């Protein structure tokens, strides 16, 4: 019988303790797996979301994030200039504001409000029902949440009061027609969003700064790539700041959400130490109870390496069995934890904290393998140095 088969029989002989050991490793392994998914999940998810918009460069007036700095003056003219660059496929200007849709109740529904203009064949949203806004018409698209709260549908008429500055304003309400219901990539689960053309947004904002925007979004030609396009845009408009998706993700990675990566690192270290300590104790106590049996096997002709291999295989079986169970358990736990974390206000619907990636699975398996080896070291040392005659005398006579 080989070492693995022998180790299997040793474990099966005491099913309660073997099962508990495997279950314990499964629980710890599930937490470890989740921490690995969390370590990069948010960044991967955000990268996917940014790329899904179809634009790979963001041009702003300062190095702040879009919507956090001053408006870009003459944004429409500049968007057209950018769109004419050979390396650019399309470019659109976006302006962000807030608004109240005067429907769905006496106080209306507070919503974010965006205006778009430019050369792009499509807008940064997907139409779910109805149709897209037509240029030059007072039309808006609204998201599902806004539609549900205001009871508006495609074709409905609504009055909208815009708020376009930091300070409170009392702008007159403006009539709009809802042309369609749309999905916006950065919508939070309960967020309400309304979008129209930049021209109509400026009109709703009182006609001031009608040519200004918060950000110009640029899609580069696939043959050129974002880096070369960013250089072209920076050369064309040196007073503006160009941010690629990769740079945005990098900034995001260095921002406040690094907390999750740090906490995952700490918890990974704690979880691994916990697993190593407990499996070591489990194996050591188990070995101590079987010293006489092991000494008898040695006396019967089992080599030192053979009994060491038996102990090591026991460790591998406990960690391996627990590790296998930890994958489905970890996946279920990740879904639950993701649901909890996604309640943080302002997190877009499509952003997830726990994202599966093959590298996380590889690291998980490597860490579990290392755990099996390290946890087996001390019990292996006991078995390897076991004095056969003295142990047999102690166990039989004692």
């Amino acid at each position, binding site marked *: 019988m080989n070492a693995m088969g022998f180790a299997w029989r040793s474990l099966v002989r005491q099913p309660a303790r073997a099962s508990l050991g495997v279950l314990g490793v499964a629980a710890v392994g599930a937490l470890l797996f989740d921490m690995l998914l969390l370590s990069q999940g948010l960044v991967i998810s955000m990268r996917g979301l940014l790329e899904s918009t179809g634009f790979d460069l963001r041009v702003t007036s300062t190095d702040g994030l879009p919507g956090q700095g001053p408006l870009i003056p003459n944004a429409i003219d500049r968007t057209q200039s950018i769109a004419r660059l050979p390396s650019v496929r399309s470019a659109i200007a976006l302006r962000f504001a807030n608004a109240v849709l005067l429907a769905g109740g006496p106080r209306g529904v507070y919503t974010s409000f965006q205006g778009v203009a430019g050369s792009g064949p499509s807008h940064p949203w997907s139409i779910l029902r109805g149709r897209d806004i037509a240029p030059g018409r007072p039309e808006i698209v609204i998201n599902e949440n806004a539609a549900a709260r205001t009871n508006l549908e495609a074709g409905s008429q609504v009055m909208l009061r815009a708020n376009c500055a930091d300070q409170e304003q009392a702008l007159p309400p403006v009539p709009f027609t809802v042309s369609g219901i749309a999905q916006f990539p950065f919508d939070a689960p309960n967020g309400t969003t309304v979008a129209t053309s930049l021209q109509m947004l400026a009109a709703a904002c009182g006609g001031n700064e009608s040519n200004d925007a918060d950000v110009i979004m640029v899609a580069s030609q696939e043959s050129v790539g974002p880096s070369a396009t960013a250089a072209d845009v920076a050369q064309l408009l040196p007073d503006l700041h160009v941010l690629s998706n990769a740079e945005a993700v990098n900034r995001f990675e260095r921002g406040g959400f690094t907390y999750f990566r740090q906490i995952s690192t700490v918890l990974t270290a704690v979880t691994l130490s916990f697993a190593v300590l*407990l499996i070591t104790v489990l194996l050591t106590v188990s070995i101590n109870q079987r010293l006489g049996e092991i000494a008898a096997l040695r006396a019967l002709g089992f080599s030192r390496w053979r009994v060491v291999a038996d102990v090591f295989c026991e460790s591998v079986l406990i960690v391996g069995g627990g590790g296998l169970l930890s994958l489905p358990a970890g996946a279920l736990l990740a879904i639950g934890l993701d649901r909890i974390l996604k309640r943080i206000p302002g997190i877009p619907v499509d952003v997830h904290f726990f994202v599966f990636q093959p590298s996380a699975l590889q690291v998980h398996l490597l860490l579990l393998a290392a755990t099996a080896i390290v946890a087996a070291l001390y019990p292996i040392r006991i078995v390897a140095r076991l004095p056969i005659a003295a142990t047999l005398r102690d166990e039989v006579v004692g």
Partner: protein
Amino acid sequence: VSVRSVVTFIAFVVIASASVAADDSLPSVLISRQLSETEHLSVGDVIRLSVSEDGTHVQQFRIAGVYEPTPDPARLGAVIREVQLHLPDLLNLTREPSTPSGGEYVQTINVALVDPNDARAFSRDVGARMPGVEARPAIGAAESTGPFIVLRRFHLAIAIVTIVASTVFLLALTIMLVDERRATVGVLRLIGLPIRRIIFQLFLEGVLIAVVGSVFGLVLSLLSEGIINRFFQWRYDTALVFVRITPQVAAICVAIAVPLGVSATVVASWALLRRSGLRLARR
């Protein structure tokens, strides 16, 4: 309700700076430690501030002090480069030429009440007398902020998983430890000790081990509290406290750990003691 003091503030960012000879007649400002370090500014230096990137409408100020920004979890990871000005100086600097003096606005008015318990009543009074102005009690503001409630739930969920894993391991260990003493327990049974007496002894052992383990765990957590706080404070350059072992947290941990440890010992022992003494003592 009486108001003890009223403070207004607006955060301001340095646009341009230059260190020249100190001049006491200049208006004074405070700068954040981070700004002081990144721009190599110190107390007594004169800086020039402007509200526009092109450096128009520049005014000079003297740095009166360097302050440590109030830790703010919402700004974790951000390098806080701030200048605090006296409000009249700020309004002079930021006022549009067309705006008459006194017509400016501020974002926030912080109010300190003589009796903090009057916060809710004061908030209602402001709402009734000044429509459009919202007064919120500061006490409990952090607790009511969504992200931190979510993070608390997240940590609680992780703690529950950890407790489940620990319980499973604990049960496995106690089964083995009790099994190791099978012969001893068998002899005790054979010389006439009743099961109840042996279980009581094992129960006391379980209590002792659980209490010692809990105390060890608390000491370990108190030691790691400092390490974790120092690491994250260094990592994020903040004075924010990330981990705090309060008496309440310690009490909860002990209240969970001790009964869990004792229960595991008793459950494992009970399974063993159901066998006959002769069978237990047999080698």
